[in-house]
């Protein structure tokens, strides 16, 4: 039997382990066994990747940047979901309120997710910075630090931020486009009462990350099986629906520039050693 590839993943809910069980079974059945190692946060997972405890990490975009920062930019993003590409985040506000432009937020309060959430905090605050508003100075920030370390995988922070807007304690809140779509459809957000005030530039989300020394033949073996999943195959669809994708696509790093800019401007990694 081939030595299994060691895959790292961060869990915020035990139910997520079910997805990884299905993925592992699929890889096993296709001759590429993987063993999954779960981590409580991305910092531990990045450390494990760089120390060689695992071969591949299913990384958040912030964990990708952290891995690059700590490895001297030698890691590789080898695959991602189609839905990881070209995401955007929104700043939303009440349609009946006085906020009509981003500039109107000067002196007001913006509610965001956890401090390490790319989509609900770092990138939306980066949008404010791009438009000349300094968070904490020109705009008050109400942050909802739910499950810090999970990089916003858990939607709780975004939801609390929205509730803060709804209760009138904030003038705008930040959320990723997928949550806007879901919540305006399931009744969490009444689309008649709230409107998108601003949209960030597109960015990419999670990716499978490997170290520079991950053997190319192992990588090809892994990718061959991964890319053999097809949404039109009912056996594959269950997992793909759970994981929220229609296709696995090659990894790319061009979509992480926006987060990199936000992290730099907000000194996110300041005080941590590379």
């Amino acid at each position, binding site marked *: 039997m081939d030595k299994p590839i060691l895959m790292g993943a961060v*869990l915020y809910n035990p*139910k997520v*382990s*079910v997805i990884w*069980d299905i993925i592992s079974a699929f890889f096993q059945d296709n001759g590429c066994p993987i063993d999954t*190692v*779960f*981590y*409580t946060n991305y910092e*531990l997972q990045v450390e494990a990747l760089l120390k060689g405890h695992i071969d591949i990490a299913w990384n958040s975009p912030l964990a990708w940047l952290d891995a690059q920062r700590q490895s001297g930019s030698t890691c590789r993003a080898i695959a991602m979901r189609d839905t990881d590409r070209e995401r955007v985040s929104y700043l939303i506000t009440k349609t009946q309120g006085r906020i009509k432009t981003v500039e109107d937020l000067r002196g007001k309060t913006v509610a965001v997710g956890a401090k390490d959430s790319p989509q609900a905090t770092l990138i939306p605050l980066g949008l404010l910075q791009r438009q000349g508003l300094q968070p904490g100075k020109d705009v008050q920030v109400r942050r909802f630090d739910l499950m810090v370390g999970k990089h916003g995988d858990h939607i709780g922070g975004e939801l609390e931020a929205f509730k803060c807007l709804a209760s009138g304690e904030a003038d705008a809140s930040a959320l990723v486009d997928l949550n806007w779509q879901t919540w305006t459809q399931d009744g969490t957000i009444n689309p008649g009462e709230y409107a998108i005030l601003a949209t960030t530039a597109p960015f990419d989300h999670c990716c499978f990350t490997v170290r520079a020394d991950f053997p190319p033949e192992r990588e090809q073996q892994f990718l061959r099986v991964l890319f053999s999943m097809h949404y039109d195959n009912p056996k594959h669809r269950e997992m793909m629906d759970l994981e929220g994708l229609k296709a696995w696509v090659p990894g790319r790093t061009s979509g992480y520039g926006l987060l990199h800019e936000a992290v730099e401007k907000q000194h996110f990694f300041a005080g941590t050693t590379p």
Partner: protein
Amino acid sequence: MNMERYTWTLRVSTACKDRATVFVRQHQFPVGAPVQFDAAYDAITALEYVLGAIGADVVNGFRALARKRRVEVDHVEAVIEGALNNPLTYLGVVGESGHPGLEQVSVKVYVASLAAEAEIQRVWQEMLDKSPLVRTFQPAIRFELSLQVVL
């Protein structure tokens, strides 16, 4: 205690991935994984059997005592909810703390009866005193019991 120690003996055996068979007297039943998080999992887990056993102990114990005390009861039903201290530790999540043991069980019992409330309460208290599983879990974990009489 002036008696010989009475014990129960079961035999449990497994020959496949996550399915055990429990042999008890002339009966047998299958048990799945210790715990599962997949709603579509096709077996009953060990944890679910424990929670089910607590509920069965309470409703059957109540019903038997009601009959003995000649309190008329139409129906008894319980809703059991259990929570582990930290289920992520069961999955071996690196960096998690706590343990995978049961931390809290809540048992809500609904009794349909036209009997006087005081009579129902007397049966309820007696059942709690005599229940092997309630007496086992109550001192060990957060164990919440409630009774609601419905007509």
